[in-house]
């Protein structure tokens, strides 16, 4: 059997991370798609916290190529919303420097495919500043990047390389899969006193409208969201693929199969307790992600199942991922991306096992 969580899909809050007691008052609900929810969160947090500063390519006057930073410059001025020269390494280095001096930079890398020049700063400095100075200096920055395929964009605009970031100690890597979670998780990311990479599934930027209460309530980081409860099998995913997963769960539910759907949300560090508890119940697990299957985060989750849940497992853990090849151009990207049918087939194979 499948049961929905509460309407705005807020999970049980992690006791380690009490909800933020923002001073903002409830201002009624706003209808938002995911990218608008991001914009709403940025507006909220810039108003609440004068140390928040936005920077990136085309984020100020243009409001971002996806409009995630729309009207922020108008609202908060060109000192806090900065169009940088074209250099991702610079954007990251600036953010590190600003963060060490008490600002909270929220940097945008225009597409994840252009993050590589920023990695030296993110990996060698952002992730290490607190440790290197034994806590004297910190790096409370957020790097936002649209990622993933499915919008028929040119080369380098459609990759999912979250596994590269998730392997770096000192970084949190967060991926929302709905407008509601985008709003709450981005607030949490900005408020987190350490560096957070915030990956935005651009394929679903405008896929679905939700009602969001702009009350400044953050969602917890380091926590999976159980989107559907079920006893027959656990389906683990994140980002845009949550849409396909939800479809599959609904289809199977109609056939009497109860899938427990877990949105990992923070892919580093992964809240394995939630996943392990689910698999202890269901005994079966499928993991789905857009990134190439080999070396993806699905492998880490499956490995932890093989380590901590071997006796619970009634069937092999299957991973549905992208092919181990370069992300194809637009004409073949649908072929590359895992489909609802692929996910369903994997679930059926696992259910048929043993």
């Amino acid at each position, binding site marked *: 059997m499948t049961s929905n969580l509460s309407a705005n899909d807020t999970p049980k809050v992690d006791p380690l991370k009490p909800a933020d007691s923002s001073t903002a008052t409830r201002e009624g609900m706003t209808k938002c798609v995911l990218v608008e929810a991001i914009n709403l969160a940025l507006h909220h947090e810039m108003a609440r916290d004068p140390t928040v500063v936005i920077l990136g390519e085309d984020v100020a006057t243009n409001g971002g190529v996806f409009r995630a930073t729309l009207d922020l410059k108008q609202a908060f001025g060109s000192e806090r919303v900065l169009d940088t020269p074209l250099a991702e390494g*610079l954007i990251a280095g600036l953010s590190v420097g600003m963060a060490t001096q008490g600002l909270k930079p929220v940097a945008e890398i225009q597409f994840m495919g252009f993050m590589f020049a920023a990695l030296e700063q993110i990996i060698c400095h952002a992730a290490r500043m607190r440790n290197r100075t034994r806590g004297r200096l910190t790096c409370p920055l957020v790097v936002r990047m649209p990622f993933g395929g499915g919008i028929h964009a*040119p080369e380098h605009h459609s990759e999912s390389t979250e596994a590269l970031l998730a392997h770096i100690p000192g970084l949190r890597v967060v991926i929302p899969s709905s407008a509601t979670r985008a709003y709450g998780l981005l607030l949490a990311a900005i408020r987190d006193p350490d560096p957070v990479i915030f990956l935005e599934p651009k394929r679903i930027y405008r896929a679905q409208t939700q009602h969001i209460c702009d009350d400044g309530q953050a969602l917890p980081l380091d926590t999976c969201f159980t989107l559907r409860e079920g006893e027959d099998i656990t389906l683990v995913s994140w980002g845009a693929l949550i849409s396909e997963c939800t479809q599959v769960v609904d289809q199977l539910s109609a056939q009497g199969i109860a899938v427990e759907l877990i949105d990992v949300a923070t892919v580093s560090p992964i809240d394995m307790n939630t996943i392990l508890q689910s698999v202890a119940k269901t005994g079966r697990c499928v993991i789905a992600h857009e990134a190439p299957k080999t070396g993806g985060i699905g492998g880490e989750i499956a490995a932890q199942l093989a380590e901590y849940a071997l006796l619970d497992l009634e069937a092999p853990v299957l991973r549905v991922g992208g092919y181990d090849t*370069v992300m194809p151009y637009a004409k073949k990207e649908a072929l590359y991306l895992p489909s609802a049918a692929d996910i369903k087939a994997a679930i059926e194979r696992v259910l048929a096992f043993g």
Partner: protein
Amino acid sequence: MRGRQQFSIRLLQYLDPQGKLDLPLPEWTSNTILLLAIYENMVLARLLDQKAIALQRTGQMGTYPSILGQEAISVCIGLAMAKHDVLVPYYRDTPAQIIRGISLAEIFMYWGGDERGGNLNTASRDLPTCVPIATQLTQAAGVAVALKIKGEDSVVVTTCGDGATSKGDFMEALNLAGVWDLPIVFVINNNRWAISVPLEQQTRAATLAQKAIAAGIEGIQVDGNDPIAVYDAIHQAIERARKDKQPTLIEALSYRLSDHTTADDASRYRDADELKAHWQEEPILRFQQFLHQQGLWNAGQEKALQQQCLQVVDTAVDEYLSVDAEPATAIIDYLHAFLPYTLEPQRVGLQGKEASALRGD
């Protein structure tokens, strides 16, 4: 141990915006076939550009970066290069690529989301279009090193936008070209915008050409809408590269008359008056007026050229739209020379998926 080092950057222009001569014509302009080739290729480039945008608007093409107003730069590059030279382009170099033998259909395929548009097998060893900004520049330096090691007298021409000059690779490549005496020409297509960011927010340098000084190499500004100046500067730089193994940085001043790409709306961030003013300086009308003045061009020729170019473009569109889909396995088949055995099951899986390949179309 005291003193002062002096540096200077000059700006080259022959034709003013009305196509009038500012300077006596250089000698090579007696080659009227070349002058007409410049013009014809600019016209072809513009018509191709219009068609690409039309295809995109009708859902038959992906995001496309127009080169409207910047045709002179890439056309002159294409014409000034020898066949055995190597072009390392950025994404607004379609005109040069066409001159170097790449079919228009391939260009449509690339922007239509088909990897075969990067095969460019007629371009023997030119590098393909480069999307990650400025990354082509150090590669171009590497190509120049290879040519030098192999003892060839070929040279490399590489290009980038004004925004690209802010990215570290730009300077790394320039610096290397200087210290290793590389046969290479860097051309900046300074169209004054990097998506929504104007040049004034990109750098405080008065010219982009002066970035050459940081590398100890020659730098020059040219009016990038004046084909005589552009060709002259590129031609001379190529000769220096070939004969003296010396690099040059050319900043070609132009203007992006279009949106950044079909996914962009420049009216959000750019003043309509600024755009209008720059229409007065665009290269095609300017050069047409010049050719008229020189008695090298008339209305009849213009009409014939337009028709001929339209036909070339239409034929290419037909070819593009009628090309068979690549098999699904192609997404894996070109990854390695030898497919690792671990990928074989994935390849087999793809064979079954042949049909669903159409899902994304």
